[in-house]
């Protein structure tokens, strides 16, 4: 989807069907111990009706990316650079009032733990009706009717009775349905789902995933699906972004990510998960641990854990195009070999080469 030309011309008009585009987004947290670059130059885009999967381990910046899109970052964090273009307009330049209009209307979000994101002292119906009232010119009665209708849509039996119940009276799966009902009550163009099924059991997860698929189909809505579960990604996503240490390591369509991954991190992740029906003597492992965000290595963030690490990895690797629509942040050539400049190329040469090869904005 992304070609280098597309990004090179700065204030380009949005291409048809382009819903959200992140360009070099940077969100940093200024803590007492130093600066945490939670999101550090993230670039990707979501087209209308598309499901983009964002995958990575905890601390990779996937949730902060989503919060940055909705401008929900609070001190000590700050979006320090880049653009968040919604239909070509930069959300980072919106006023707070304008932004409030975007939230819910164009972009909705659902969170991992429905119990902590629903208000325990209001009924589920009240909470959905409130969202409806805020965004549409309706009276209380109409808003309530709409809330009941939404509960029915997300498959809650006896919606009229359930609307009068409080979150604690419902099971985890039901609560997540309420969250989805609330998020969809204003018919958004983009739904950001942050680990929507992580807290749920597999049979309930299957229900919620089927529900999201059906709603996506009907509402022609785009989804940004954030998860660490590669199974959920494979099930749902059209495109996949793999994040590590606040950076996008690899980006491609789902089939490519799972069948021809280029980045050693993606390969490591895929190799390390046990899969149903494939009993192996030993699991492959990614050595070591995720680096401390306050003390990231120079050059490639993954080099200390990477089986392919070379001297040149001390210089920040290029984001190179492996194939059309497939980019990877790595020194390995598209064929998976050491770079042509040599694996022990001097830093200046490496830096120059990295800039030449990089296809996205920085």
């Amino acid at each position, binding site marked *: 989807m992304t070609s280098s030309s597309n990004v090179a011309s700065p204030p380009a008009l949005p291409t048809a069907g382009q819903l959200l585009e992140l360009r070099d987004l940077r969100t940093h947290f200024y803590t007492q111990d130093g600066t945490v670059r939670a999101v550090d130059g993230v670039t990707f885009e979501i087209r209308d009706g598309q499901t983009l999967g964002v995958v990575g*381990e*905890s601390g990779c910046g996937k949730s902060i990316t989503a919060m940055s899109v909705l401008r929900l970052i609070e001190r000590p964090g700050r979006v320090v650079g880049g653009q968040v273009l919604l239909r070509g307009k930069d959300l980072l330049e919106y006023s707070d009032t304008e932004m409030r209009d975007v939230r819910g209307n164009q972009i909705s979000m659902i969170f991992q733990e429905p119990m902590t994101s629903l208000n325990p002292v209001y009924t589920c119906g009240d909470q959905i009706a409130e969202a409806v009232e805020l965004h549409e010119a309706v009276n209380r009665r109409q808003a309530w009717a709409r809330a009941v*209708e939404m509960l*029915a*849509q*997300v*498959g809650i039996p006896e919606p009229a009775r359930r609307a009068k119940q409080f979150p604690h009276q419902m*099971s*985890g*799966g*039901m609560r997540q349905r309420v969250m989805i009902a609330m998020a969809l009550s204003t018919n958004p163009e983009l739904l950001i789902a942050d680990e929507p099924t992580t807290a749920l*059991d*597999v*049979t*309930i*997860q*299957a*229900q919620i*995933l*089927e*529900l999201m*698929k*059906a*709603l996506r189909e*009907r509402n022609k809505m785009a989804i940004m699906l954030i998860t*660490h*579960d*590669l*199974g*959920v*990604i*494979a*099930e749902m*996503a059209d495109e996949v972004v793999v994040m590590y240490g606040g950076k996008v390591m690899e980006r491609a369509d*789902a*089939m490519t990510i*799972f*069948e021809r991954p280029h980045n050693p991190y993606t390969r*490591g*992740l*895929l190799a*390390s*998960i*046990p*899969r*149903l*029906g494939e*009993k*192996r*003597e*030993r*699991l*492959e*492992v*990614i050595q070591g*641990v*995720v680096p401390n965000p306050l003390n990231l290595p120079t050059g490639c963030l993954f080099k200390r854990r990477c089986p392919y690490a070379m001297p040149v990895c001390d210089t920040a690797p290029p984001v190179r195009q492996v194939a059309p629509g497939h980019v990877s942040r790595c020194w390995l050539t598209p064929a998976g070999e050491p770079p042509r400049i040599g694996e022990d190329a001097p830093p200046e040469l490496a830096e120059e080469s990295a800039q030449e090869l990089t296809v996205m904005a920085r």
Partner: protein
Amino acid sequence: MTGPEARVTSQDRPDAPPDPESGSPLWKPAADTGSHTGRRGASGAETAPDAQGEVLVKVTDLVKHFPIRGGLLGIRRLGAVRAVDGVSFDVRRGETLGLVGESGCGKTTLGKVILRLLPPTSGDVSIKDRPIFGLSGSKMKAVREDMQVVFQDPYASLNPRMTVGEIVGEGPLVHGLKNRVKREELVRELLGKVGLNQSHIHRYPHEFSGGQRQRIGIARALALNPDFIVCDEPVSALDVSIQSQVLNLLDDLQRELGLTYLFIAHNLAVVEHISDRVGVMYLGKIVELADVDTLYRDARHPYTVALLSAVPEPDPRRRRKRLVLRGDVPSPVNPPSGCRFHTRCWLREQLGNPENCVTDEPELRTISPGQQAACHWSEKITPEGVQSAAEHQPPVTLAEAAAD
């Protein structure tokens, strides 16, 4: 380290009778690992589905109900959560028995009752042919040397005020290893065994990552040189790349020390990887118990089938129609009559709602060698039937949406 040492004075080691089976001090490595009959035995014959090893832990008709009290004084018994409701199985020496099920099915309670961390309502558990529920405190203390536990949350299960050395060394201290130098030596050895830096012995839990903390938890479980370890969701809180490290570690330790695991988890792929046999729990009962390959290839309980079908596979080519169970797990306070799964059962629907599913409670019965299932209609499960059940279920919920 004054705290733990002050505490030891109240511990009177002598009255704990030495275990007849392991006369050697606890902190010496086990001499006998010969009877390890895990799946990775050298020959195929050893792992034959029927292989009966020595039974290490025997669970007989175990019941655990939690009373629900109410009324003015809070003493009237209103009912009970039937968390574990008649469970029997054996764990054989050297094997890993996996236990899967959804939250609320009773698997964690079962693990705790087996360890006698919770008192049972009825039933029996014996380890090495020795029933544990009647034992006095001091006798129980001796038995605890044989059975240890690794908990799910590596953040909550380590005392933040104790150093790693104190955490791992506490068990040996309580069980009589009072010499500080020897204890430290032991702790260092254990840290090395679980892949931690031995020089980190004086650090506190917050200085470690999640995966490292879980290694500390494992070292603590190993400190008394147990035969049997209950692993309660040991990798669920860990990141994918760390999860595989810990699973491999558990594997290595099992081989090296001849350990026996009861591995409780909800992740079916993880359980498949680590287990020799697997039990599936639903509403306080085991509904299927089989060798791992049989269970994952040819499940004979409709709940197992649905559970396996629900797992999203990390392969976009294998996106398929899944068998989605409707509704939630019923309340364990008032489980459905007959077969507890009948309210959500796709097979029952397919067979035209036979009467006995509602009236008769199915017993766990042997379907094939090494496979037991608690379903009246196990034999009616066919690949075609599963396929058609997946395809003929109503499209999710939007039917209702269209109606209004």
